[in-house]
């Protein structure tokens, strides 16, 4: 048996023995996702046990080094773990911005001290992070951000406002872009800093989305003290960290997001609602649209596989994350449109118990944010055309 086969066998046995039955079914809605953090209320004993057991193995962050609480797995081993989890429908034990955004950036740019301070609590699901990038006047043009951090010797004092900060009211810590050198050109005076959301002077105000939910906030900083050692990377070079983190964020958003449609095929769902004639969906237009979507999705997956394979061989991805983010999110929006086509009036029910309180309509509306968050589709196309195709600036 090869090492990898051995690893698969052991992993399978461990998962069989340790993954609680309740954690072996797809999420019924995004609300069942385990985010972790100081304020987290576990929804069941199984959710808690599952997170803790996986954290003990280091498998909440399978590829991070063991000394920081990760699993130390190779790419191949991590793939095996993912496959074995998928095989039994095991849920992600815990995930939040700490895992798929801050962690990779800290591993690349953080000091040893910062890694030891922040990575293990992320792995154990103890600290939940939020992202302080966007401001009222700095969205797509992120580098024009104005939140100030003034140097006061051993600490900074931060003043300003962020907006669209997802889960700011639920998160424990924030990774935040602040201007540390107002004299420098716009990309060169930004630093990437970390601080506790319970610090004095931090306040949040939830904003309601078109889906009726309020996952994001306006976040205000009023003379917030930030310890100087909490700067990730070099002072005034925060833009490099920010950009690197964005490629991870984009890869993640471009993947299959959690939610009702995750792992669900549209064909059988549509058959339930529109019926079949002679073994085909009774709505020919919808049938053709679903086929086209599935074909496009297959092509997208093939490209994702190819880009990943080339990246492993050290051929580099970088700006390719913009391709993945663009197509992944546009496809996801199409899937939700087709889901709504299929469900008819049932999809429109906004608060019935039958629909778990309008789950379909709310997730459909939420999907519209996929092509805005983490950089809009238009911004992604701009990156592709300039960075990958080498088209000139105006």
């Amino acid at each position, binding site marked *: 048996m090869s090492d990898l086969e051995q690893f698969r066998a052991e992993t399978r046995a461990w998962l069989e023995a340790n993954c609680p039955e309740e954690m072996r079914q797809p999420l019924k809605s995004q609300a069942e996702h385990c985010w972790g953090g100081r304020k987290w209320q576990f929804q069941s004993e199984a959710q808690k046990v599952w997170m803790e057991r996986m954290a003990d193995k280091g498998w909440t962050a399978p590829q991070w080094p063991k000394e920081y609480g990760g699993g130390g797995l190779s790419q191949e081993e991590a793939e095996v773990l993912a496959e074995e989890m998928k095989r039994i429908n095991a849920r992600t034990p815990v995930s939040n911005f700490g895992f798929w955004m801050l962690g990779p950036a800290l591993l690349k740019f953080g000091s040893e001290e910062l890694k030891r301070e922040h990575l293990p609590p992320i792995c154990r699901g103890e600290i939940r992070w939020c992202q302080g990038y966007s401001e009222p006047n700095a969205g797509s043009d992120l580098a024009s951000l104005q939140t100030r951090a003034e140097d006061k010797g051993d600490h900074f004092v931060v003043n300003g406002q962020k907006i669209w900060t997802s889960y700011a009211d639920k998160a424990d810590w924030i990774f935040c872009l602040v201007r540390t050198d107002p004299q420098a050109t716009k990309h060169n005076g930004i630093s990437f800093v970390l601080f506790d959301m319970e610090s004095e002077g931090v306040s949040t105000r939830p904003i309601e989305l078109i889906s009726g939910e309020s996952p994001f906030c306006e976040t205000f900083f009023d003379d917030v003290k930030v310890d100087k050692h909490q700067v990730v990377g070099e002072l005034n070079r925060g833009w490099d960290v920010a950009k690197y983190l964005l490629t991870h964020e984009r890869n993640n958003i471009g993947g299959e997001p959690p939610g009702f449609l995750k792992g669900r095929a549209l*064909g059988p769902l549509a058959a339930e609602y529109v019926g079949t004639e002679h073994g085909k969906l009774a709505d020919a237009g919808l*049938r053709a649209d*679903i086929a*086209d979507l599935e074909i496009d999705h*297959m092509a997208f997956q093939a490209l994702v596989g190819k880009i990943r394979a080339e990246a492993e061989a050290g051929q580099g991805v970088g700006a390719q994350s913009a391709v993945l983010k663009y*197509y992944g999110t546009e496809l996801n929006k199409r899937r939700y449109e087709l889901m709504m086509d299929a469900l008819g009036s049932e999809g429109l029910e906004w608060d019935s118990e039958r629909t778990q309180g309008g789950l379909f309509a709310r997730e459909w509306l939420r999907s519209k944010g996929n092509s805005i968050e983490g950089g809009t589709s238009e911004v992604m196309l701009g990156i*592709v055309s300039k960075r990958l195709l080498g*088209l000139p600036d*105006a």
Partner: protein
Amino acid sequence: MKLNDEQQMLQDSVARLMADKGPVSHLRQLRDEHHDKGYDEPLWQAMVEAGLTGILVPEEHGGIGFGLVGAGLVAREIGRNLSVTPFLSTAVLGAAALSAGGSDEQKAKWLPAIAEGTAIIALAVDDGAKHRPERLQARVEGGTLSGEKRLVLDGHVADLLLVAAGEGDQAALYLVDPKADGVTVERTVMADSRNAARIRFDGVPAEAMADGAAALATALRAGRAVLAAELSGLALEAFERTLGYLKERKQFGRLIGTFQALQHRAAQLSGEVAMSEALAMQALDACDRGADDADQQVLAAKAKAARVALLAGQEAVQMHGGIGMTDEFDIGFFLKRARAGGETLGDANYCADRFAALRGY
């Protein structure tokens, strides 16, 4: 999927061969001189020498048995250069059909001939203007074939015809001698300047295969997968030529590639082309590995490649402006081939419909 070293070497050498010996200018020349064979004979000879005609022929019959990924890599370069050869008709459709369903005798006779380049084979499936192999009208009764076929690639120069027909309630391929009495061949030059033919059969002797149904299914699958690769290659070339033009043509005192409206369309097209290519290669590989969902992947790949190639052709002409509409400029050839290649062996709608059926909805 990623190419292994052997496949990578094949791709590099084929890319050189096609660019040297089968460039777009040859297509133009063949068209302008109304060439009687209608394909690039020196190039075909070079492909014989390089072993490419036997790419799907098993080694025991004199081929190199490189599999469909290999055939797809050749087709991709054919697509990029719009090279005109009987590669699809003979080396892919003919070889796949005979290997899958030929009797020992049929294999021994025809497979070495394919590898050596001494026979051209044409597959005749479509009875009407659209590809509908599930509802064949041509019939075989008592060993003789009657019916009419269209879009028979290289049909007017073929040494052997493989004809899809129904017998009882079974559909299968039959071997037919194009010189037999009762066979009437009309060469139909198509919009892409490629060879095709309409062929009538009036009570012509038809030789059954060992498994003519498997031969038909295998040939169609191989042909669609290889066409997906060819179409992806042509889409890539049309895109790259267009991208070059965006960086060269000036209007309003600046390069047209600085206009965001064009930048975004170029970015979208590049992604579509990359996805089409990745799916085509994955589907070819799925066939070689005998994956359970190989049929689904091939139908998806052909549908995707047909749509993307047409999009690339259309965008290429549009972004070239007036010069893109001229016959003198090559870009129009890509649009024409995109349409013809897309139609061949089932257009995007057909493939998507079959795909949906296999997916159970």
